[in-house]
Structures are given as structure tokens and as C-alpha cells.
């Protein structure tokens, strides 16, 4: 095996390692606001986005339920750890359980819920799958907004007071949370990259490309899809835990249709075909979102939502594979030296394009 399959891969590796180094040095390089807000958010929204990208790029499933799953794990944690003490939280179940137990339960239960969701949706494909997962998302949002026993419209707050001993105090320690998010993101990236090369991952990609053929070859198509969805839910649950540690609270607004669409926008900006795109998209979106809030559009008026909507529209029209797709095409147009580049078809992009080992 050669060092790099192509110059493109080489450049990508260099950029990747450089980004890792910069991120590892994060707090030394950036201002507090950048570390605690922009970069930490990028990391955990990137994790959530990567679950969506994983499901799409390797399973052919466009899931709009990832934000909801993120919220479900956050809500589970919030209901389990908060305590009903004077001056404490009054919303939710306030069970006051051990934070380590609650953390594990929140992740496990969310994964199981994801498995159920995935099983119900496992026979739906394409646009039906999108609609069904969107319905999950909206129902989860209404559930936590209306069933006051589990939260209600008001946020469950003060959740980040209760962290497991191996994490320790995170309030007032933005750098610690940043490194936790960084480590989690890295682990999620590596595990996902590994998973797609296992027999499970390969048959999943087969199902993505031709479910009928895989089914007649004897593969359990719905089972593979449900399991993949459960893995997506697992990743999303990690993002949910980080969200609630970062924000301290969880409210229906965190998992509303707006938030659902925001996560999709991140994925589309970054590129749905490659896992890396998740973090690239999250970063781009969060920076835009943060710095255009004061901008007023001349003539047509409206808020930054119009700007984001128009940017999104432009990306979907010009480059449906987002920034990563643009990058792939750039190399494709450079004399097609880089293998695996070239225009990527929208419906089923080349899995893990441009990478080899």
C-alpha cells in the first residue's frame, strides 16, 4: 500500500492533523468566548450532525430525528439527576439519582428509543423516511412541551450541577468541557470511521445502494437499518449530554422544528456525503449564526433567518454536497488527478470518498 492513494488524500490528512493540533491547543489560541461558545458548540453540534451524516452517507437514510434524540437524552439526564430541593429545580421528575448512573441510563435509554424508532421506520425509504423521522421530531418536541410531568414548556435547568465524579465540576470550567467535547468528537469520528469498514458497515452500504438485492442475498435489511439508526441515536445522545452540560438546561425549544432544521442545515452546508462535513458545517453555521444576528437585510427586511435560508438555498442549488462536495469537485477539476473525486451524484454519494488506508 502506498502512503497516500492520491495527493488529495495527502492534503486532506495534513489539513486534518493541523485542525486536530489547533483544536488541541484551542484554549491557548482563542479567546474565551471562542472556546466556550463557538468551538464547544461546534464540537457537540458536529457530533449530532455526524450522526445524521453517518445515517445518510452509509445508510441512505436522511433522519430529521437526530435533534430530537439529542433532546431525549438531555431530557432523560435532566429528569434523573436534578433534585427537588429549596431553590432547586421544580420542573420534571427531579429524581435526584446518582449522576454516573443517570449518565449511563440516559445514553442507553436513548439508544433503545432510537432502536424502536428505527425499527418502526426501517421499512420506509427515501423521502418517506425523512417525513417519518420529522414526525418523530415534532412529536418529541410536543411531548416534552405538553407533558409537564417530564418537563413542560419551561426548561429543566441546573442540570450541569450534577456531573459524575470522573468529570467533576464543569460550571465555571469552560476549558474542561471543551476538552471533553473534543475528546468525544474525536472518539465518535474514529469509531464511526471504523464501523463503516466492519462487515456490518459494508452490508449497510450495500443496503443503501440496493436494498432489494441485499434482501435477496439474505441480509436482514430492516434489522441493519434499525441497528444503524440505534447507533445514530447513540451518537446523538452523546451530543445531547454535552449540550446539557454546556447549557445547563433543556427546553422544548432545543428540539423544536427550528432546531431540527438547523442541524440539517449544518449537515448540508458541510456536506452530507462525508463525516468530516458534519463538523465543518457546524462550524460554518455557528459562526454565521453568531455574527449575522445584528445584520439587517436591506430592502427585503427580515432577520438572519432570511440570510440563513438564502445561504442554504444557494448551497442546495449550487452544491448539494456542501463544502466538502465543493472540495471534492475542486480536486476533480484539477485535471482529475485525485482518485475518487469528480462530481458526486446527489442521491448516493461515494462512501468515504477520498479516503483510503
Amino acid at each position, binding site marked *: 500500500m502506498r*502512503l497516500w492513494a492520491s495527493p488529495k488524500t*495527502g492534503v486532506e*490528512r*495534513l*489539513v486534518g*492533523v*493541523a*485542525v486536530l*493540533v*489547533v483544536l488541541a*491547543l484551542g484554549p491557548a*489560541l*482563542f*479567546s*474565551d*468566548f*471562542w472556546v*466556550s*461558545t463557538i468551538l464547544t458548540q461546534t464540537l457537540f453540534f458536529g457530533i449530532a450532525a455526524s450522526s445524521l451524516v453517518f445515517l445518510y452517507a452509509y445508510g441512505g437514510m436522511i433522519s430529521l430525528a437526530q435533534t430530537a434524540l439529542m433532546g431525549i437524552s438531555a431530557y432523560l439526564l435532566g429528569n434523573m439527576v436534578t433534585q427537588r430541593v429549596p*431553590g*432547586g429545580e*421544580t420542573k420534571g421528575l427531579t429524581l435526584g439519582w446518582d449522576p454516573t448512573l443517570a449518565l449511563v441510563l440516559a445514553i442507553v435509554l436513548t439508544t433503545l428509543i432510537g432502536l424502536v424508532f428505527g425499527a418502526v421506520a426501517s421499512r420506509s425509504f427515501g423521502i418517506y423516511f425523512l417525513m417519518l423521522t420529522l414526525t418523530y421530531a415534532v412529536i418529541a418536541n*410536543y411531548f416534552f*412541551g*405538553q407533558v*409537564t410531568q417530564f418537563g*413542560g*414548556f*419551561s*426548561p429543566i*435547568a*441546573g442540570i450541569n450541577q450534577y456531573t459524575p465524579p470522573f468529570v467533576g465540576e464543569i*460550571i*465555571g470550567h469552560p476549558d474542561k468541557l471543551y476538552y471533553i467535547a473534543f475528546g468525544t468528537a474525536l472518539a465518535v469520528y474514529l469509531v464511526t470511521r471504523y464501523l463503516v469498514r466492519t462487515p456490518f458497515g459494508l452490508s449497510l452500504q450495500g443496503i443503501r445502494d440496493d436494498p432489494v438485492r441485499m434482501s435477496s442475498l439474505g441480509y436482514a435489511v430492516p434489522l441493519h437499518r434499525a441497528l444503524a439508526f440505534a447507533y445514530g441515536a447513540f451518537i446523538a445522545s452523546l451530543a445531547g449530554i454535552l449540550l446539557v452540560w454546556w*447549557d*445547563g*438546561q433543556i*427546553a*422544548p*425549544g*432545543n428540539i*423544536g422544528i427550528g*432546531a431540527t432544521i438547523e442541524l440539517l442545515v449544518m449537515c448540508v452546508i458541510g456536506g452530507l456525503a462525508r463525516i468530516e462535513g458534519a463538523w465543518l458545517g457546524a462550524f460554518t453555521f455557528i459562526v454565521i449564526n*453568531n455574527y449575522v*444576528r*445584528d445584520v439587517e437585510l436591506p430592502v427585503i427586511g427580515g*432577520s438572519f433567518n432570511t440570510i440563513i435560508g438564502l445561504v442554504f438555498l444557494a448551497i442546495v442549488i449550487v452544491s448539494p454536497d456542501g463544502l466538502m462536495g465543493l472540495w471534492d469537485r475542486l480536486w476533480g477539476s484539477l485535471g482529475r488527478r485525485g482518485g475518487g473525486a469528480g462530481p458526486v451524484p446527489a442521491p448516493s454519494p461515494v462512501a468515504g470518498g477520498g479516503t483510503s488506508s
Partner: protein
Amino acid sequence: MRRLRSWKLLLPLAALVAVGSVSVSGSLAAPSQANEVRVAIMTDCKGAFAFGYELDIGGAQAAFAQYAGGKPKDRKKPSAGMTGIRAGGKDVNIVGYGCGDDTAPTAIKETRRLMEQLRADVMVGPLSGDEAVAVANYAKTKPLKTFIIGTAGSQDPTMQIAPRNMFRYHGDGAQWNAGLGEIVYKRLGWRRAAIIMDDYSFGWTSSAGIIADFCAIGGRIVKRVFPPLNTTDYAPYIRQLPRPGTVDGYFWVVGGTGTGASLKAFEQAYGKLDPKQHAGNLFFAFLGADKEVAPKVVGAYLGGFGTAPGLKRSSSVGTRICPLRTGSSTTTTTLPGRSSKA
């Protein structure tokens, strides 16, 4: 082994990126002066209460103009900013305006932007109950910053969460309704009443004020109905209310986008609204925006709210505003957030 080679290529690149990012972060952090107070104002520019954006900011800045020499940049647009404010020997700079949408997550996002990115020392806001709950929890983690609640009426921020660096200079949502129960008991002879309220923190707080007042003087609440916020069709919830004739009256604590819709549903279930049978919290005042229902409740009593925009034309709306008995609500100040449901 070969992988090591890539590190040689990597180092210059990493250095380049690092230098770039240092310069970026350096330019982002503008030097702060010791002799200034940085103020941020946060209210809603989206969602159910977006109509008050400029009004709220104008209200929050009025004292700067009156007492501290502030000059508005644009008299018709308070959010354009203000210059020349000096108070206590310090320059006061308004560094930014937050744009909430009536939800907690956005409130936090905006508060972070104002306090951390724009490095405000003091924030005035937010507008509504759950936003204030969220900001109060955030305030706990930032003990060196100061938070002054804008118009939010939920009790939790200053009674339950109660961070030391958060202050309220007006009554809470329960206090706004002080006197309402008493006035319908004495003037309209209500003894048995039903209440319908939004199922969230402000709905509970606001109802707590009404219920405490009404029950303290001898009235009875025979039925409580909790429609979820932003219900599409209120008919099934209205059906849960006792029929007219079986109660003396109804208290309405349905706000946001539901005020008019729920009253219409009541009309469609039980016929014309009799103003003597209905009383509401401040949201009745916002019926000014809902042109169909407002004339039907002319003469009804409603809870106060300082000077809401819809209240200024009270003569044409015809609604009577209850006296706001601040300081007298000993019953309500001991109520926890959800006591209205107890």
C-alpha cells in the same frame, strides 16, 4: 513508520494556522476600559411578543435619556442606540440588543452573545417568563455579571432560583393580578369560578395570583383547565370548562397566540361573551391586537401590567384595569411556581 513523514509537512502548516487564529482571536477581543459600564438590553424580536421590540428597548433606555444625558441616535428607533450616557462618573455604553423569540434556548444563546462576546457587565431583560428562568440559571454561573429582569413575570427567577446577581424592579406575574379576585367577588358577586390557563410557568404564576386573591376572600375555584401552549383547536379544552350557569365566572390566563382563539372557541360553545362573566390577566389587554374579540369583552376586569402598549387606549377598548397593589400580596409571595395547581 511512513506516517511520520507527514509530520514534517505538517509543522509549518500548523504554525501557519495557529498564527492565523491568534490574530483572529486577538482582533475579536477589543480592549476593555476600566472606567465604563457595558450594558446590554434583551427582549423579543420574534415569536408571540415580537411586536414590543422597539417599545421595550425604548422603555429600558428612557432613564438614560432622562437622568444620564443619553442621546438617542434615532428618536424613532430606540434600537439604533444611544450615546453620551454618563452615570456615577462612569461612561455607560450600550453594547448590544438581544433578540429573543420567547423560548429559553434562544434566550440563553442571546445572553451568551451579549455577556461573553460583547462583554456586557449588566443585562436588562429578558421579556418573558421562561426566558427569565433560563437566564436566571445562567446568571448563577456568572456571579460577576449583573442581570436585571425586563418584563418577565414568572416567580422562579427571583424566588426559586434566586441568583444573588439578578434583580427585579417590578412585581411578578402573580402580583400583577392582585386585586382581581377581590374585585370580581365584591362587585360582580362571583363565588364559584373556573380558570383556564396556559400550561407553563407564566400561566401558573399568573393564575396563582388570581386564585390566591379570589380564594383568600372566600371564592372557590371549581375547575382548572390547562390547554397546552399554542393549541391549534381550543374547542376540546373549552368543553372541559363548566357550563355557564353552573359557575359565576371564568378567569382567562391564555396568552401568546391563544387569547383570541380560546375566547372564540368559548363563544362557539356557549354563545355571546358576557363581560360580567369573564376576567383575565394582562393578556386580555393584548386583545387590542385581536380585533374581533376585543369589543366582546368590553367592561371585563383584567389584571395589570404597568403600561402595556395595548392598555394606553383603555377608554376605547373599554376594559377596566385593576389597581396594581404592589407590596400587598402577602399571600402570593409565599407561593411556589406551581402552587396554582396544588
